[in-house]
């Protein structure tokens, strides 16, 4: 019962489970795709901040390339206040604006403005920047070109300024009225605030701004900027290591899963990348830049897992519910099956019972048939008995009645002397008949035969010994008894009757032998349709069955005049065989021999 329920449940549930797993996978994929999509938008928004900075820096810087400087720019350290004041005043409202410098062609700052703590641009002590890469790069620029530097930590007097300040510089060459280059104009943007904006989370996502070597410029996992330029903390090393993605090359925008984390990688498009077409900023300035920034957003595994949890919970609930329903269905199914099986079982039992009844009936039928046969035999025996009585008893009685009648009518002594001995004959006949009938009736009435296993061979040898004297007789010397007990030799029957039967047959075979030939009698066993058959064949006188067949086994029938006999032997034999439920048949030809066939049922 339980095994059936479990089997049915599994059969129904396994496809559902497969579907559930497939579906949950689809859900996860969809979730990840959606997250990646959102992060791509997020990155794009962040890129815009950087792009805006770049645009602003370019515009602000390029202004100086069009301003005609006095030829004595480099010689005179004193620039007119008004030359710069108005510009500074306008621009000090720009948050990112951090420094403005004019540097002569020798790397010496001519003019320097710095943003102070009060958010005002004020003149500051000039420095020499001849060793700085942006200065050298700036010298290579043509008129009208603007160089946008990489994002770096700010340095003053050749040292990294503390606290660290991520800066981006715009550099452009400046010229006098004669179009001779007099130096460079350098604008510094402090990106701290922009990075603060970019660090903002929309979920549990982590933000990384990296350069083309995947060095971290800014991240919301660390307060440090550009750690590779200053001091790498342990955490910074871990971050750097993580972002290398086992040295996976990343060029195009993409997203991928790694160790349960969702990573979204996207290049920052600031607008002046030279991508085989006209630069977007061509109307503003000819921008020279070597910056290839990219933003990486990480959705941590824990967050994804948290997001998936609700899906999982729903699926689990769904599965539990369906499993419950399936169990109910399986239970119902199993019950139906059980009922069906028990119904089939009961049908089977009924069928078996019917079968048994039928067998019983057949058996009874056989018994009835058997007893019917017995009755038929019995009937025949009774008829025979009746006949014997009618003929053999009535006959002397009628004779007697005539004699008595004659005696009563006659009174002379002669008649009396003549008739009286006849009465004695009749009386003898009657007593002989009575004895014979009695022995016959005793066979008929013997219902309780002592049945035992009789070894025919032993019995026959025994019987033969009784005839030794007869067989030793000169006349009978050429008589041979042959046994052929190949098929069987043992039989369940009455030993007493069997002995009598064999005695009769052997006696007959000897009595009715032909004296002119070597006589024999063969006792042979056989099987016929599973029944035991005993043949007794002789080459004796034989009998004309056409003439005598009907009387063969009747009482007081004799067929051979010169041989003494009462005509009782075969009659008794047949009765005894019938008493043992056996039948007797005969085949014979006068002058050839006789074969008796006994069939034992």
């Amino acid at each position, binding site marked *: 019962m339980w095994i059936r329920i479990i089997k049915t449940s599994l059969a129904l549930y396994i496809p559902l489970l497969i579907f559930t797993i497939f579906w949950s996978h689809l859900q996860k994929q969809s979730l990840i795709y959606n997250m990646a999509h959102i992060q791509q938008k997020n990155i794009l928004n962040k890129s815009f901040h950087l792009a805006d900075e770049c645009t602003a820096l370019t515009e602000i810087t390029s202004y100086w390339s069009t301003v005609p400087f006095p030829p004595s720019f480099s010689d005179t350290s004193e620039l007119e206040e008004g030359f710069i004041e108005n510009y500074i005043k306008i621009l000090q409202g720009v948050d990112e604006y951090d420094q403005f410098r004019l540097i002569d062609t020798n790397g010496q700052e001519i003019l320097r403005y710095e943003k102070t703590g009060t958010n005002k641009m004020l003149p500051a002590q000039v420095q020499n920047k001849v060793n700085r890469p942006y200065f050298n790069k700036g010298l290579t620029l043509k008129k009208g070109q603007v160089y946008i530097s990489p994002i770096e930590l700010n340095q003053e007097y050749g040292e990294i300024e503390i606290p660290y300040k991520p800066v981006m510089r715009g550099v452009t060459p400046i010229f006098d009225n004669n179009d001779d280059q007099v130096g460079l104009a350098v604008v510094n943007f402090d990106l701290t605030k922009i990075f603060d904006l970019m660090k903002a989370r929309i979920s549990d996502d982590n933000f990384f701004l990296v350069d083309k070597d995947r060095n971290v410029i800014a991240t919301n996992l660390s307060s440090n900027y550009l750690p590779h330029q200053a001091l790498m903390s342990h955490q910074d090393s871990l971050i750097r290591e993580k972002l290398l993605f086992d040295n996976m090359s990343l060029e195009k925008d993409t997203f991928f899963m790694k160790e349960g984390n969702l990573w979204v990688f996207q290049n920052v498009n600031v607008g002046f990348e030279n991508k085989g077409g006209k630069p977007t900023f061509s109307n503003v300035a000819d921008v020279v830049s070597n910056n290839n920034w990219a933003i990486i957003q990480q959705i941590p595994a824990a967050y994804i897992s948290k997001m998936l949890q609700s899906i999982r919970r729903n699926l689990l609930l769904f599965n539990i519910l369906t499993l419950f329903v399936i169990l109910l269905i399986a239970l119902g199914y199993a019950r139906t099956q059980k009922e069906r099986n028990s119904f089939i079982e009961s049908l089977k039992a009924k069928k078996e019972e019917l079968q048994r009844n039928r067998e019983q009936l057949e058996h009874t039928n056989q018994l009835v048939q058997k007893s019917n046969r017995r009755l038929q035999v019995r009937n025949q025996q009774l008829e025979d008995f009746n006949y014997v009585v009618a003929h053999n008893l009535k006959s002397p009685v*009628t004779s007697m009645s005539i004699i008595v009648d004659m005696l009563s009518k006659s009174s002379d002594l002669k008649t009396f002397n003549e008739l009286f001995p006849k009465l004695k004959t009749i009386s003898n006949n009657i007593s002989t008949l009575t004895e014979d009938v009695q022995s016959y009736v005793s066979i008929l009435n013997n219902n309780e035969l002592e049945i035992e296993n009789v070894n025919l061979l032993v019995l026959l040898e025994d019987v033969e010994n009784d005839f030794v004297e007869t067989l030793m007789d000169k006349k009978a010397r050429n008589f041979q008894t042959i046994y052929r007990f190949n098929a069987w030799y043992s039989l369940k029957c009455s030993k007493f009757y069997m002995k009598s039967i064999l005695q009769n047959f052997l006696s007959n075979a000897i009595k009715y032998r032909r004296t002119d030939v070597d006589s024999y009698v063969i006792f042979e066993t056989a099987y016929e349709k599973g029944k035991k058959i005993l043949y007794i064949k002789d080459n004796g006188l034989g009998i004309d069955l056409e*003439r005598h067949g009907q009387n063969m086994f009747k009482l007081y*029938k004799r067929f051979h005049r010169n041989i003494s006999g009462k005509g009782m032997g075969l009659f008794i034999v047949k009765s005894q065989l019938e008493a043992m439920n056996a039948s007797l048949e005969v085949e014979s030809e006068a002058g050839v021999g006789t074969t008796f066939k006994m069939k034992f049922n």
Partner: protein
Amino acid sequence: MKTPNILLVDDDEVYLFVTKKILNGLSKNIIVTSFTDGEQAIEYINLCLGQNVELPEVILLDINMPFLDGWGFLSEFKKVKPKLRGQNVDIFMVTSSNSDMDLDKAKEFEEITGYVVKPVFEDKMEEILTKVYNGSWKS
């Protein structure tokens, strides 16, 4: 006036003795031959036919006899019947059996003139002879 010639076939010697005595009592001038079985009787018939001896006119035949019974005798008699050359032989079954089986069987033989159940007393015998000889048998 004819001398009745009667053949008795019966294995009961007492019956033969008694019947002969009755017949002799009925007429001094009567020939009675007897045999104790059908086989001897048919041999006698054959002998008579072979030697042109006159056959008995009446045969009183028993049914139940050894060697050849009454029915067997009738079957054999049927075979020699063509040799009788028109001579009439009346056969009476004289038996102690009054069973239907024997009566029915007797009807199958046209050779049978009558069926008499024993005992055959003197008056019955007289009746038989009168029937056969139309009363012209008494001396």
